[in-house]
């Protein structure tokens, strides 16, 4: 049975104070749980339900509805590549292909060493600077294959470029 680490637990309980109904703290607390556990599986859902004293099925409904919650491990560096219209017409497909080649994985997969994962996402609201992607919490814009190589090189200097 998973339990949240003590600091995260305290942070989570503070969220309950921000709303007139405790259920409203569910999304922020799921974000915290995901940071703590890496992803949200059945046990993580139960841990959240227990902490908030709400029904597990409510936690399940939210964790499965929202795309940002992952149900299996993702890479240490999670690369979310925008594939919507503005980025597509500026070459997002080429960027995605290059990224997949360099990392040797398909979209929605994780590299064997667990370092990188790639996900295709919808518009991330920086369309004038496409193609764009988020790597964890950092936004990268005006991407080119060279910039992709540079980003990978900085995140994992020992990596052999394929």
């Amino acid at each position, binding site marked *: 049975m998973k339990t949240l680490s003590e600091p995260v637990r305290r942070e989570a309980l503070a969220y309950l104070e*921000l*709303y*007139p*109904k405790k*259920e*409203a*703290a*569910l*999304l*922020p607390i*799921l*974000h915290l749980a995901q940071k703590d556990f890496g992803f949200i599986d059945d046990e993580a859902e139960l841990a959240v339900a227990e902490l908030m004293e*709400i029904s597990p099925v*409510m936690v399940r*409904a*939210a964790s499965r*509805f*929202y*795309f*940002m*919650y992952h149900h299996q491990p993702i890479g240490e560096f999670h690369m*979310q590549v925008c*594939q*919507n*219209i*503005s980025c*597509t*017409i*500026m070459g997002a497909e080429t960027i995605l292909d290059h990224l997949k080649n360099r990392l040797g994985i398909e979209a929605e997969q994780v590299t064997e060493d667990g370092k990188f994962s790639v996900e295709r*996402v*919808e*518009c*991330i*609201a*920086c*369309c*004038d*600077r*496409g193609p764009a992607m*988020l790597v964890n*919490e*950092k*936004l990268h814009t005006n991407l080119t294959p060279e910039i992709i190589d540079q980003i990978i090189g900085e995140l994992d200097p020992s990596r052999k470029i394929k």
Partner: protein
Amino acid sequence: MPEHILVTRNFQYPDQPELKIALSRGTYEQWKRILSEKISPEDIINEVKTAKLRGQGGAGFPAGVKWGFVPQDTPKPKYLCVNADEGEPGTFKDRALLEKDPHQLLEGIAITCFAVGIHTAYIYMRGEFYDPQRIVQKAIDDAKKEGLLGKDIQGSGFDLEVIIHMGAGAYICGEETALLNSLEGKKGWPRLKPPFPALVGAFGCPTVINNVETISGVPHIMNMGGEAFQKIGTENDGGTKLFGISGHVQKPGLYELPMGTPLKELVFDVAGGVRDGHELKAVIPGGSSTPILKPDELDIPLEFEAMMEAGTMLGSGAAIVLDETVSIPEVFMVMSRFYAHESCGQCTPCREGCTWIYKIARKIYEGNGVPADLDLILDLAPMLDGTTVCPLGAALAAPAIAIVEKFRDEFLGMMKN
């Protein structure tokens, strides 16, 4: 700087998010004036009505009128939800407002809450907005320390808490009633209206929901007066709007222009026209939910009614410019994939219809389409309009019909027979 530059006035200064600097440039002056001169909530609402400030989240409902719907005699608490879920493809204006001038938004929130009698405001921000969250949270903390938010603001007895609520990746939560459900920890399923949020909103209480840009305009109305604000724009659409332009133009970016500026001017003058050596093929004028326009259809003023009369919509003011290198079937495939992916699934016509349209679009894009597929789309699409809880289905239907009708030849050209 041209006189009409309002909400982007301080975008050029990277230090604008710092409270001391923002104060030195006049931010919070209107908020302090309202409290010190004891300006009445009714006067503020009337000023915003006179200003003809329209909702900038896409639907264009007059903000002052909306505020007026909130009952004043209720014993229940009232809430403000600021819609910072920016997800309409092509749109990137709210991110800029949050990152570049968070105190302008907070001043707008404070004035709005004072006008409607609200003591708790939630900023519902899309989950991927990590930088905006950090910047706005710091701004809230600083403003509270300075006594501009929080308890007994400036000794007036007025309390206001501002809380950021992060979403978790679902475009539909930008729809106002889905946003309310999401705020309450539920799945982001839109609610049937009525009741409207002004009466039954967050936690069953009266709630105002406004877009980031709408609220950011409020301090400027109080600064210049509603009448002067309205005059910048057109008769029914007061003030300015942030237009985002992306794709194949010389100068993609964000531009603040008076309401009513011709779309043509935005594309050719402001953004410099299509990139060198290329020619214009089409413009999606206001985010991916708005019907596409051909080059000879751009002589329309950018205001809510005029755009509707022209068979499209102002939407979020996010123009996507396509040159001749773009494959329209690819754009259609990407566009319909988005709605199929983002349908919340509670209404059959939307859930099934968006998926079907996407499947057909993909089939055509992959080169396996037949001419009858185009008629199938034209038959299917109207079934998504008006049969559902929210307008997401319609947000694909109208653009799908327009793109198929206007680019039929290009679609047919991709087909074998």
